[in-house]
């Protein structure tokens, strides 16, 4: 997540509770993150949009990626 934000000239906040809207992390940024993880795993992480809509904080992003990897 830090890499995605750094590539856009922004920094990842230290707190898991940081609000994604406040730090400007949008759904397409989440897609970029998921695709980078896919590249590392060598496997696709497909998912529906409702799960994405529930993501509100940095912690939610990390939890969701973790869930996708373990699914």
């Amino acid at each position, binding site marked *: 997540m830090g890499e995605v934000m750094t590539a856009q000239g922004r920094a990842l906040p230290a707190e898991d509770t940081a609000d994604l809207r406040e730090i400007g992390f949008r*759904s397409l940024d989440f*897609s970029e993150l*998921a*695709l980078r993880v896919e590249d590392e795993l060598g496997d*696709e*992480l*497909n*998912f*529906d*949009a*409702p799960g*994405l*809509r529930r993501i509100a904080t940095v912690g939610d992003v990390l939890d969701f990626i973790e869930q996708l990897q373990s699914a």
Partner: protein
Amino acid sequence: MSEAPSVVPPASVVLVSGGSRGLGLAIVTDLLAAGIKVAAFARTVTPELTALGEKYPNHLHYGSVDVNDSAAGQAFVKAVESRLGPIDALVNNAAIGQDSLHVHTSADHLAEIIQTNLTSPLILTRFVLRRMLAKGLKGRIVNITSICAQRGYPGLVAYSATKGGMDAATRSLARELGGRILANAVAPGFFASEMSAVLGQTQLDQIVRRTPTGHLTEPEDVLPVVRMLLLENTNLNGQVLVVDGAASI
């Protein structure tokens, strides 16, 4: 030599795909109440469709058929013809939805959406048309599409493509069938039930505020339009009628 203008008579036996719930079930119910013979199939027969079968034993033929199983669909059509008489109208309603960004939708799921929402309805339409034409019938086709065919919405890329494909097919069918069979499409806006499943109350309220008529689309809004296309003499042909309260304009 010019031919005398011909009128396509009101539908008498209507086949509705995906007729076991939601808008499909509402269309079946509405047509039966209007005295029309109806055949309906869906992957799963619901208690609501079964109840209609008990209420209208001589007017409704129904069964469990997956629209992607063309052999089963064709056998169902022949069974309908034996029981209710020749089919002279088809409502292509069966479809599956989508709620996933394109880059995160698997290739298999994309293929499934296209198969169910575009390829299978075209195959069913082809078969029903062949039966109609071989019997010398005039008839009507109504394709249930979506506002997604005309406006962009995230999470609905493949779904929108299939609905746009059906809108385009509707126009070409109207041309190809030379007025002997009227082909039209009805494109509802988002149904309140669909929207409430994925959006919060605040977002729903915002959408309603932006809709000039002040409410989201309900199946009851669509029924008179479908009924008109099946039963009335309007000279409408090759058209896509949007039912969304002007939310999209």
